[in-house]
């Protein structure tokens, strides 16, 4: 029994998987609409950098003195901690996914499997966060937003993202094939 049925849209719009290209098209339209209305491209990591900012502040640091936040991300200093543009969009994404997951009854808590998985995850996260700040965005903000805005940084980021992803993939494949297979 094949799981993928894009034909009976009525029945499956809420529950069934959508074709990849349809999702890409809709996301593209949403991205453009977002840009039209709010005049700002969609970005995910700016909001997360914001969390870092607030976290460090609560821990006693003074990130508002850092050149990065003063010059580049300066709107951080004036907006509300929780109810700001970047955060609402990110929170919306989280709740949107949760809604979709629950509607198809897919929700399940999946625990961490091993310490190595945990270390890899945290390391990968740190790499992503660091890289995203250096390039002013992640694959959504810098790659998608940058290229769509016709900025050179988007293209440069894209090329090197491909290189980095290829390297990382080879590492993952080596790890799985040598260490994980029974």
């Amino acid at each position, binding site marked *: 029994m094949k*799981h*993928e049925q894009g034909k009976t849209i009525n029945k499956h719009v809420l529950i069934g998987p959508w074709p990849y290209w349809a999702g890409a098209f809709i996301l593209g339209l949403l991205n453009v609409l977002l840009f039209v209305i709010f005049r700002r491209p969609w970005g995910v990591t700016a909001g997360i950098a914001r969390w870092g900012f607030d976290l460090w502040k609560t821990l006693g640091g003074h990130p508002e003195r850092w050149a990065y936040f003063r010059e580049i991300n300066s709107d951080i200093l004036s907006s509300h901690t929780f109810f700001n543009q970047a955060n609402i969009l990110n929170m919306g994404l989280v709740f949107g996914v949760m809604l979709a997951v629950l509607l198809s009854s897919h*929700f*399940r808590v999946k*625990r961490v499997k091993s310490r190595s998985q945990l270390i890899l995850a945290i390391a990968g996260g740190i790499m992503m966060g660091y890289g995203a700040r250096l390039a002013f965005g992640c694959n959504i903000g810098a790659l998608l937003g940058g290229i769509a805005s016709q900025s050179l940084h988007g293209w440069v980021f894209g090329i090197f993202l491909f290189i980095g992803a290829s390297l990382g993939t080879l590492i993952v494949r080596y790890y*799985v094939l040598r260490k*994980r297979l029974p």
Partner: protein
Amino acid sequence: MAKERLDVLGEVCPIPLLMTQGVLAKFKNIDVLVVETDSNQAARNILNWCESCGFAFEIDDLENGVWEITIKKGNKCIF
């Protein structure tokens, strides 16, 4: 008919598909592989791969968020 079970619960893609391929490549006597995964994306990845290789497959929702994919190995894909 040699039937094996592969448990990749808790693994995120690309690991489930990598392991599915790896197991089928390493243990050539397996005819039927039953993969248990709890990642929606990984399940879809595996199904797409089976489809491209021409393997017959069946998918079953075991419980909330757990899928069981039964793959009948064919001869086509060399990996």
